[in-house]
């Protein structure tokens, strides 16, 4: 008993620097940001409090509303498509096929690229006068149209396409690791019982992959909240302001428009969204009591 407690004390001591960093650098700046959002700060932070005026302006600004909507569309689209594609790719690789390593590298390769490179590449591919549309037209189908990138209501889906291209490889890698962790006896048993493979995947494997799926969703959600460079390189937030996202809104107002007050108000709103939606859900998934007591 005694040695164990000593070990605990030692580990707490070892954690103190990290703890201090979290409290001051992370919570401290977070609180400071929220505080600034109630002031009239412009170029320099000031402590001249003006109540919720920044928030009133924020939610009366069409660009912010569009940004929030886009974040939801992008988030749902990215997470949903990435999970499905990632799972399908992982399941395909799990069939003990030849050249598995080659395929795995190909699938994972886009993730190694920066969002800027991804965005620029897709900007050219999707540009109606340079890319796919022109190529198909040159082949003879002169009425072919694929110009989502210049359409107000479809531009955000272009961002999803590029995002999926980039991130589904990562989900694939996580899922594959999860699949490899599944007991081979399970497959043997299901084969003996004559259950088709797709049912085994759907009813047994996917539920068992739950922790992997949650990890993927968390990682993807982080990418969704901070998506910035992809939009910059791909659409520049356009056409017009049709594909703006919150992170771009915040950085534009923070640096280009010398309006720290409004930018911090926007970041505070993002913070609240993350706290209200993601944290309770994470808590539920990771720490719910019956799980702690149960299986393991």
């Amino acid at each position: 008993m005694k040695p164990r407690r000593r070990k605990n004390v030692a580990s707490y001591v070892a954690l103190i620097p990290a703890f201090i960093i979290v409290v001051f650098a992370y919570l401290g700046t977070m609180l400071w940001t929220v505080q600034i959002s109630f002031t009239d700060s412009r170029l320099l932070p000031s402590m001249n409090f003006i109540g919720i005026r920044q928030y009133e302006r924020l939610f009366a600004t069409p660009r912010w509303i569009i940004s929030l909507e886009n974040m939801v569309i992008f988030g749902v689209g990215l997470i949903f498509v990435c999970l499905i594609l990632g799972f399908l790719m992982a399941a395909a690789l799990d069939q003990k096929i030849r050249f598995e390593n080659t395929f795995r590298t190909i699938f994972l390769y886009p993730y190694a690229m920066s969002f800027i490179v991804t965005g620029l590449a897709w900007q050219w591919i999707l540009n109606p006068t340079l890319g796919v549309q022109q190529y198909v037209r040159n082949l003879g189908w002169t009425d072919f149209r694929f110009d989502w990138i210049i359409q107000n209501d479809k531009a955000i889906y272009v961002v999803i396409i590029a995002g999926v291209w980039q991130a589904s490889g990562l989900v694939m890698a996580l899922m594959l690791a999860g699949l490899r962790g599944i007991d081979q006896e399970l497959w043997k048993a299901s084969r003996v019982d004559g259950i088709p493979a797709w049912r085994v995947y759907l009813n047994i494997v996917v539920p068992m992959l739950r922790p992997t799926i949650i990890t993927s969703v968390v990682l993807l959600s982080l990418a969704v909240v901070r998506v910035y460079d992809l939009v910059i390189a791909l659409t520049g937030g356009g056409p017009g302001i049709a594909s703006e996202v919150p992170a771009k809104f915040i950085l534009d107002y923070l640096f280009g428009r010398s309006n720290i007050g409004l930018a911090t108000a926007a970041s505070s709103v993002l913070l609240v969204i993350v706290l209200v939606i993601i944290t309770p859900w994470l808590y539920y998934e990771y720490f719910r009591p019956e799980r702690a007591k149960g299986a393991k």
Partner: protein
Amino acid sequence: MKRVTRVLLGAVAMVGLAVGVAQADPQKAEVFHWWTSGGEAAAVKEFAKAFNAAGGEWVDTAIGGSGATARPIGINRIIGGDPPAAMQFNTGKQIDELVAQGLIRNLDDIAEKEGWKAALPPAFYDAVTRDGHVIAVPINNHGQNWVWYSKPALEKVGAAEPTTWDEFFAVGDKLKAAGIIPVAVGGQPWQLNLMLNAILLSEGGKDLYLKVYKDLDPEAVKSPEFKKVAEIFGKIRDYSDPGNPNRDWNVATGMVITGKAGFQFMGDWAKGEFVLADQVAGKDFGCILGPGQKNFIMGGDVFIFPKLKDEAGTKAQDLLATTFMSKDAQVAFNAKKGSVPVRLDVDNSKLDACAQIGVQVLQDPDKQIPAADILASADVVQSLTDVVAEYWANPSMTADAFVEKWNTAVEQAK
């Protein structure tokens, strides 16, 4: 042995000499800016050369990217108590808060001694003055409302340089019929805003422009004249190509250079692209301030001088300010930067045909129009840029809806 000693002695003497030089030359000044592209860097070297020749020591701190990247870094250094001797800003209201906080030196003595007030266009002199004190050095004068056109493209359809908007669209129809894109548009918000401002001045005139940007007058925005401006701006959509969203300005300029497109609305930095492609102003490409009323929208950069604690640094600042404003350095710098010298009293004979048009228009003080950034805060101007971009991207939005959004944006950001 002897030789070794001699070499050693020689080395010591050289070090001593170097130290001696350093001590005799205390005019060291760190200059903070974001001019990193080829032409910009070459232009900055001209200032460095002039400063070093005048007995200073130029320490170059260039931050890549745009001002939005570099500015916060520089501001943090000023607030953090480690200011550079001079820092670049765009001409305009960006520096107001630094001035209000008393972080910036005033340059009244130098400005008076060297007669800046007489040498500068009034709008620029006002732009670097706050409460009667000169607080910055203007560096360059970038014309923002140029229309560039391809001479071969216009010749091909037998059209002359348009002088009114009706003529402009008539030429556009001819170009369209000949399979040439009439207007190369870069559909990024800031470029669209430049285009709108160019139209505003050529169609609406100086008074409307100043009412809209300086007075932020909602009635002027609601006037039929402004609505006409919005309609002309909207009409250009039909004369551009579908590839315009998010197109970079230099790509659009490239379309004019190759004759794929007829016109482009862009500032005089576009000239650098033409020159790089071995084209000659007035021969291969033409330039219009207008069509319609000729005015010159002046934007540019300034250097501010943060207050320093040591006297030597302050002296170096004096020398630096004098260098920036000296006639020779002004001409050398601006020739490479593509802009026009801020001083009106320099020899402009070496400038190209387009710059000559600009210089000629600038002779009339009534046509020296300050850029929107000089008249209104960054927040106002950029919020309006959002509105302009939204209007451009949405052809079903009416001019009335545009006017209403414009006034709402001003009301919020003011």
